Structure formats: C-alpha cells, structure tokens
C-alpha cells in the first residue's frame, strides 16, 4: 500500500511544482464581440470562460435598485469539463452557491453607485476542470469586467490553497484536491490586501489557519502580477490595432 506522496522528499509536488508555486496562467481578453466584456482564462489545465453584459437595462424591472446597479451571476460547468462526462443542470445547488458567491464578491467591488437602475450580468462557464475552478472563475470574471470597462474599487484575484504535511501548497490541481487534505478557496482585493471571500468545506486545525491565510494572500498577489501584465499587453495591442498607439 504505497501512499501517494503529495510532496516528494525533494520538496516537489506531483506535477513538479514547489509548494509555493502557482500553475501557468494564460488569458485572452475580449474574445467575444457580442459581450461587453469577456475573457478566457487558463490556470494550468483548468479553463474558464467569463462574459460580462452591462451595465444595461435590467431584465426584470422589479429587481432594479434606485441608487445602484444590481449584479447577477450565472455559473455553469460544461458536461465535458471533467474526465467523466456529467450533465449538470443550471439549478445544481453547488453551482447556485458559487454563482451567488461570485455575485456577492463583485457587488462589493464594482462601483455600482455609478449606474443606478441598471444591471450587470456575469456569465461564467468552466470548460475544463482540473482543480481550482472557483478561483479561476473569479479571476476570469475580474478580467471580463475590466475588458467591459466597468469601474471597480480594487483588483480582485483568487487562489486555492491545500495543506500537506504542515505546508500550505498553492493553486492545487484536481489530483491534489481529491486527496483528503483541506482545501481553501480565497479571494482578496490586491491593493488593500483584504480578504473578500474565503471558503472551505473541510476540517482544519485552527493553528494552521493563519498560515493558510498568509499563503492565500501570497498566491493571489502572484496571480495579480501576472494578470496585470496581460491586461497591459492587451491594451497596447488594442491601441496599435486602432492606430492610436502612444509614442
């Protein structure tokens, strides 16, 4: 009975990363012209598509707020996202919970007071699921909102942390998350370093919580640095395409 080693004696994880290393991030901004903002984000093998519509006239007039915009979110996972084909209905409880979480996170960060009586809709779809779906969804939503030009109080990024042999491991993939260790998904606002969202469905000794939170902040900041560069590169390429490149 060999127990699978999540951290080898050399200090490397199953996929060869160090505990403090996040997966390769790649993103495309604005792939869909019909949406106001859109993004495709890849974190390792996890691939997520986010589209943002808004601010626009609310679909349900009864939902409008007189002083700010409402934010709605709909999250879905395609049937081919996991290794086993599984049809998930839109009313799946876990999906609804995640959609609600994304809605609440972004409601607090988007400057909704600038758009009273309007609606901002976020649609997230997980196309490939290899662990860290929620974190990737949050990151993709941030990118899509930035692509749509919707003002936000801060830049929100998310990261998933696991815990193996007393060491927090950053950005866990599906194999690591399927282990019996605790898994924390955290989102922070990068300028003020405040935690916007934290979720865990496992047991964790309280003395390890602070280590995990510090690791989460580190991971989110790493993601922020990468996304910042990608956004800047995308903006410059857009300007070049429009023929108004800065000298």
């Amino acid at each position: 009975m060999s127990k699978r080693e999540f951290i080898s004696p050399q200090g490397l994880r199953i996929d060869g990363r160090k505990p403090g290393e996040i997966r390769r991030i790649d993103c495309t901004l604005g792939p869909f012209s019909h949406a106001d903002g859109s993004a495709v984000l890849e974190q390792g093998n996890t691939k997520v598509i986010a589209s943002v519509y808004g601010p626009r006239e609310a679909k349900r007039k009864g939902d409008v707020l007189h002083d700010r915009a409402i934010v709605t979110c709909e999250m879905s996972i395609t049937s081919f996202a996991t290794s086993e084909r599984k049809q998930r209905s839109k009313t799946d409880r876990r999906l609804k919970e995640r959609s609600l979480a994304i809605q609440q996170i972004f409601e607090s960060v988007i400057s909704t007071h600038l758009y009273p009586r309007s609606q901002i809709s976020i649609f997230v779809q997980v196309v490939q699921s290899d662990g860290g779906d929620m974190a990737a969804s949050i990151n993709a939503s941030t990118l899509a909102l930035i692509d749509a030009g919707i003002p936000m109080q801060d830049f929100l990024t998310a990261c998933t942390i696991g815990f193996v042999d007393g060491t927090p491991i950053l950005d866990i993939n599906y194999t690591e998350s399927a282990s019996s260790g605790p898994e924390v998904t955290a989102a922070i606002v990068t300028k003020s370093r405040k935690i916007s969202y934290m979720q865990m469905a496992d047991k964790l000794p309280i003395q390890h919580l602070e280590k995990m939170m510090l690791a989460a902040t580190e991971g989110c900041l790493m993601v922020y640095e990468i996304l910042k560069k990608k956004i800047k590169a995308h903006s410059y390429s857009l300007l070049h395409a429009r023929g108004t490149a800065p000298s």
Partner: protein
Amino acid sequence: HAAWKSGMSERQYVTTGEVIGEEAGFLRGHGTVAKDGKLQATVSGFVQRVNKLVSVHALNSRYQGEIGDVVVCRILEVADKLWRVDLNSRKNAILMLSAVHLPGGVQRRRTQQDQLNMRQYFVEGDLISAEVQAVKQDGSIHLHTRSLKYGKLNKGLFLSVPASLIKRCKKHFHTLKCGVDIILGNNGYVWMQFSREQDGEE
C-alpha cells in the same frame, strides 16, 4: 474619443486598483477614486490629465450619452406620449412625442389625436436617427428628431460596432463617393443606405 486627442502630456497606463498619484491638488475625474490620500484607478486604461483634472478612460466601455450626440437607435416600446428606444447604453433612452418633427407644421401643440396616432410615426422595431437632447440626473437620455435630417430609417444596412471606436466629429452624416450615405451613430450603431440621387446600383 476624448482620450485620444493629441496634446496629452502623459500616457501613463494604469490597471484597476493601481495608484495614479497624490490626491492633493487634483480634481478627480471619471475612472478614479480617492483612497488614503491617493488617487486610485477604477478602470484599466490611460490616464488623461487636463490641467488639474485627472481621469482614466477604459479602452472599451458602453456608450454614455452626451448632449448633441447623433445616434442611430431602435424603438422598443410605444408608451404614454413617448417612445422607449434602445441605444446600446446602460439604460433605454426616451423619445418624447413633443420632441419629434410633426408633419403638420414645425411648432404645434400636441393634441390628443397626436397621442393616439403615435404608431403612425414610429412603431416597435423601427430604426431611427436622432440627437441626444438631454441627459437627466439619473442618467436617462432624452432624444429628439427636431430636424429634417433625423427620422425613420429604411431600405439600408444596419451595423453595430463598439461605441468607443466612433470618434466624436462635427458631422456624422456622410456621403461616400461610391453613392452610399452613411450615418455613424455615436452609440456604435451605424446605418448605410444608397444616396438619394443615385438609383440602387452596386
């Protein structure tokens, strides 16, 4: 679009949440927020400084109406003494009955009969060109078609482009040499039709 005018002294690029500079002595424009005595960007884009006004404009954003804009829009609903119009903005615009050009005479008091005959002018689904008359406090846009060049559009081609690509110019109605009339709506909606002089060739 205002941000791309020449004469911008600095082309500083900022992402959401990045600090632009000190707050003291500057006026906060669009796309900025003051936190802890510093100016922070709320959108990702280029910083525009005009004297003491600091603002950040995103490269892509939804159309925000300004008075005097020429727009191409679609009627969504016929309501009590007004039409609701889709402008591809954050809210539907309003075209008041008192703001359209009535055939009987330029200035005429709108009667009950006019109200009942609203459908004879514009119906749901009609495409019209109009000008932004006013932008109210709550952000709703009021349009008017009080000039002969505005009105219902038919027999042509409709196109939708991102609104940020349309520059604000003196003229939005152009006639191309190939015999095509083109209306470049500030809201990103574009209308093309054959010039009235020529008769449907190519």
